[in-house]
């Protein structure tokens, strides 16, 4: 599973702030939902994971989600800003992340732990 450049594109990136464009045409939209494309909430979590892995410069996966609030839906072709604050821990990262639209409206708020000790 790799979503960068198929589900979303990173237009710019600096200090944990990612300007993201949601792309049209990812196969997931055939099933979520037929005739009404809406980005599955869990794929927003996957986008945060992929970007957090870039920041940590290693492949991370979730080990705990303390709190994740889906404040509003995300749809293809939207322009969003993802802000990640990450603190390295023994076997991964602790992160706080927010996705907002370019007007600053909150879409997703997340506190989670990611690990680099994979299967």
């Amino acid at each position, binding site marked *: *599973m*790799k979503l960068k450049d198929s589900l979303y594109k990173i237009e710019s990136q600096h200090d944990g702030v990612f300007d993201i464009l949601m792309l049209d045409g990812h*196969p*997931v939209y*055939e*099933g*979520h*939902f*037929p005739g*009404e494309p*809406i980005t*599955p*909430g*869990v*794929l927003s*979590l*996957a986008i945060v*994971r992929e970007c957090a892995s870039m920041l940590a410069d290693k492949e991370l*996966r*979730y*080990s*705990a*989600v*303390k*709190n*994740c*609030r*889906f404040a509003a*839906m995300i749809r293809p072709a939207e322009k969003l800003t993802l802000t990640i604050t990450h603190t390295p821990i023994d076997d991964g990262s602790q992160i706080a992340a927010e996705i907002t639209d370019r007007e600053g409206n909150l879409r997703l708020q997340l506190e989670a732990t990611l690990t680099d*000790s*994979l*299967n």
Partner: protein
Amino acid sequence: MTTDDITSLIPQRPPILMVDRFSYEVDSLCHSELTLKEDNMFLHNGSMVPEGLLEHIAQTAAAHIGYRRKMAGEEVNLGFIGDIKRCTMGKRMPTVGQTVMTTMRVVSQVGNITMVSAESTSNGVTLIECRMKLAN
């Protein structure tokens, strides 16, 4: 009630159909299963990323909501995750061919807001535990 026709209860379709079987026990309890196939979109290096388990749990909750709506003579509608809380994932994630078995309890159901608590296991090993709030 056990159904093999999960698509009569939830609006999700391939490639993001993440429940194979669903069984409704009572209003506050249900079970579901997913056998991981090679073409599952949440596979990464041969095992499932935890986001796939979260989607499986969300769709289990959606099936529970869909079942209740169907029994009430209402149409199945779109549902969305409102929040995820107190979620922990195990060290090992399921691999192709393994079956994920989920037990879900409905903590509260007020209007169109449903709160659930779920645990998924595979071969008796806990994969994920979490609380989720859904709106439909």
